[in-house]
């Protein structure tokens, strides 16, 4: 299973690199869709079907909106040369990424095998979720019964995001 996940992650990296370097904006938008749909296969291989359902539908809706935007504005990217500040930002980013990869390599020796780690609290949830909350789906029982505050916070965040979108996208108020 690790071999399959590594192959799909390599595919995602290739898709993301193509999305940056494509000359046509429509091709790069579709290459962003490659990243999203490969993530669905990764979720299914790691045994998380709830996340896979949400990811596939949200990625389709996002692709529709991005293709509509590219179709209405322009298919070419306006190119501007890098100035001094751009070079300093790029060098800082590369330095921080190398630091991050070094700490990844140091700490990966103390982790469990991918997909098999189970902590003390997770064991309590797995054994107690079905009788205590009464639902056969463990994820729903934990999300709505054991951790109900987080779900309420998530719903409120969605309402706040919609408020933000409705505030920005108004032409009539600006005139």
């Amino acid at each position, binding site marked *: 299973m690790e071999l399959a996940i590594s192959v799909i992650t390599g595919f995602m990296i290739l898709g993301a690199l193509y999305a940056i370097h494509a000359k046509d904006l429509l091709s790069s938008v579709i290459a962003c869709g490659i990243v999203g749909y490969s993530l669905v296969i990764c979720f299914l291989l790691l045994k998380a*079907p*709830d996340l896979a*359902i*949400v990811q596939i*539908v*949200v990625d*389709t*809706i996002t692709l*529709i*909106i991005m293709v509509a935007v590219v179709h*209405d504005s322009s298919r070419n990217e306006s190119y501007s040369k890098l100035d001094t500040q751009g070079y300093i930002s790029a060098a800082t980013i590369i330095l921080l990424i190398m630091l991050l990869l070094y700490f990844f390599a140091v700490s990966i020796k103390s982790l469990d095998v991918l997909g098999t780690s189970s902590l003390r609290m997770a064991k309590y949830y797995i054994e107690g979720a*079905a*009788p205590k*909350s*009464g*639902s*056969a*789906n463990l*994820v*729903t*029982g934990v*999300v*709505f*019964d054991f951790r*109900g*505050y987080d*779900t*309420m916070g998530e*719903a*409120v965040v*969605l*309402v706040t*995001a*919609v408020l933000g*979108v*409705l505030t920005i*996208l*108004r*032409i*009539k108020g600006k005139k």
Partner: protein
Amino acid sequence: MKGMTLIVKKTTQLIGGMIFMYGIYVIVHGHLTPGGGFAGGVIIAGSLILVTLAYGGDFMKLIKEEAGTTIIESLATIMVILIATSGFLFGTKIFFNNFLPKGVVGHLISAGVLPLYNVFIGTEVAASIFIIFLSLVIFKEESTQ
């Protein structure tokens, strides 16, 4: 906004209702099969976006739809918080109490308050995503008028 060609309209006529019913199925069986409120809500929003894109619509109708959908979204969020607060009245008096009888694991009517939570959160998520899509369409229509 203009609709699409005849092939897309006929296909939407055949499939749009089925996607909506599939979304309702994923929401209602949220405590038995994978899915739940969030996944089913996004599927319902997807079917509404499909019908809006295929058939188009004139400007006034889109504005009325957006006004109605914001009311539905706010009401669904208020219902979620009301159900969570009504744990104060029954059983042990704590917030987010699962107070209805739990039943047999695996039956459709089981797991206390969880199916109600699924339904209202699903409605709220569907309304939110549809509102974001409609506001983008209205923005484009207003800027070209």
